[in-house]
């Protein structure tokens, strides 16, 4: 099986500080890849390079086997790499529908749409409803509810629905359960499962070991600017992973 997304020898320096040191990463179709690493290990820089927030000094990124370059998250998005940011990037005072289509609005057909540039609200609402229910987020009372009236986990749902709606090839999720309680985190983990079942691979960055071990198929351990190892959560304990991350233990050569 060919990987969907490959990062090869990515390097990035900020002045004298080395953030990425020939880092590699592979993401295979249909999997959830957990990415863990201590603070300062460079995992956030790696993720930023993959989602377009940071331009690496050297190295290459391959999407579906082809080399790609992008200089902004928007460009990455047009290529199919979607990111669910830690702060969700949702507009609280706008409705769920508005947020789903922010920047990608659908215009009405014909004169109203072409000349007056009127939006097709009904179409957007219908599609929004469909997206949410596709992910198992059923029975929204009001698709035009304002996002700020939703709880943290519900907002995650909307953000994830937005990220998986538009021809996505890869979803990157940055600390999705960091700000959530137990129940809400449950829902998000289920969401991750739903997305995977739609065939979209996910890169999951998280500090929460139990969550990572629960949903990830493979776990990429990042240390000192580069990949240390990739482990199978079924074969290792959480404590092993933490030990690898911090350097307390050396992983077996693989």
């Amino acid at each position, binding site marked *: 099986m060919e990987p969907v997304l490959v990062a090869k020898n990515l390097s990035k320096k900020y002045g004298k500080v080395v953030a990425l040191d020939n880092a590699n990463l592979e993401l295979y179709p249909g999997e959830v890849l957990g990415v863990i690493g201590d603070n300062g290990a460079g995992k956030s820089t790696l993720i930023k390079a993959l989602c377009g927030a940071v331009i690496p000094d050297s190295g290459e990124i391959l999407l579906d086997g082809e080399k790609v370059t992008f200089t902004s998250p928007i460009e990455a998005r047009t290529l199919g790499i979607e990111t669910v940011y830690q702060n969700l*990037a949702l507009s609280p005072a*706008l409705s769920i529908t*508005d947020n789903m289509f922010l920047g990608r609005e659908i215009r009405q057909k014909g004169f109203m749409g072409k000349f007056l540039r*009127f*939006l097709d609200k009904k179409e957007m609402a219908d599609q929004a409803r469909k997206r949410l229910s596709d992910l198992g*987020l059923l*029975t929204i009372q009001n698709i035009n509810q304002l996002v700020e*009236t939703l709880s943290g986990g519900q907002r995650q749902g909307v953000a994830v629905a937005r990220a998986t709606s538009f021809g996505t090839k890869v979803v990157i999720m940055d600390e999705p359960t960091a700000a959530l309680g137990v*129940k809400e985190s449950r829902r998000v983990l289920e969401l991750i499962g739903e997305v995977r079942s739609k065939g979209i691979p996910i890169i999951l960055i998280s500090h929460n070991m139990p969550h990572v071990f629960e949903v990830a198929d493979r776990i990429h351990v990042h240390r000192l600017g580069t990949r240390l190892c990739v482990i199978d959560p079924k074969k290792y304990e959480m404590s092993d992973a933490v030990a690898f991350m911090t350097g307390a233990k050396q992983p077996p050569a693989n």
Partner: protein
Amino acid sequence: MNKISDDISKDLKDQPKFSGDIGDKDQDHHTFELGEQTPLKKLQHFLHGNPTIVPVIILVLSVIAFGFIAGGKFFSAFNLSLIVQQVTIVGILAAAQTLIILTAGIDLSVAAMMVLASVFMGKLSVEMGMPTLPAILIGMISGVATGAFNGLLVTRLRLPPFIVTLGTWNIFFALVIFFTGSQSIRSSDIETNAPLLHFWGERINLGGFVFTYGAFLMIGIFIFLWFLLNKTAWGRHVYAIGDDKDAAELSGIRTDRMLVSIYAVAGLVVAIGAWVSIGRVGSVSPTSFYEGNLDSITAVVIGGTSLFGGRGTVIGSLFGALIVGVFSSGLSIAGLDVLWQRFALGCLIIIAVGIDQWIRKVST
């Protein structure tokens, strides 16, 4: 992989129900239902979704109240329509101001921009002999240019709009004094050389109500802006930028470009107001509307638009302007000293902002 899903499902069955679930449905793990609500909470939610209702209610109540206090002199068709005439210019400025405030900005230079545009229109057509329509066009361009100037300073220099427009207010105003020497262009000269400038001041009598064409134009501007803000992507982006600029940026909205266009559109609206103002005042008066900047902000705030951005309707500002006019007229006819008009205005502002803050507190 299956093991994980099984584990999760098992966990879920053992968990207590999620917050917000009313009913006993095992499968409904993903509903977005809200909890039980008291009547006050229901009201709060309702107002949250329909913020314009508040100024409408205040307007209706105040008209009725002043009808009682000040009697028939206030409540006559003539006076009520006169109030609309009196707030027309500030109303148009408030429409422009709403656009800016929705982006979490503020424009302290709107009235100065307007007077500057009217000076161009007047000077070129009356004193320099240019045909009226091109002179008006140049006034419009002046409005767009001064607006875009504000927008560029805000986006390029990354200065708060308050500070930028504080500076440009003084700059534009100084230009006005420079071009005119503080002298007005008198009404009779305009009537002789460029009567078109007075167009929006023409009145029509509709069964006792006397409206100016300018008042209809003002309403037209509000309706146009309402469509723009609610029915087009551009309008949605205005709200998005004011609500959370970073989120908007990440959604692919080019916020800097949008902001310049928003300020430019506001400038255009202001320039239309300039033309209308010549009809209202009669002359091109460089010292008039000195308090127009703050008056426009007052109307927007009382109309329910939040100064923090992202929230509010442009129609609300129309009601805000009308409320100010009603209080001003009503208190005057009731025989109260002018300073009470100011006092009442101050109270209205604080009440309006207080209600806005309360409505914002809605969250699960």
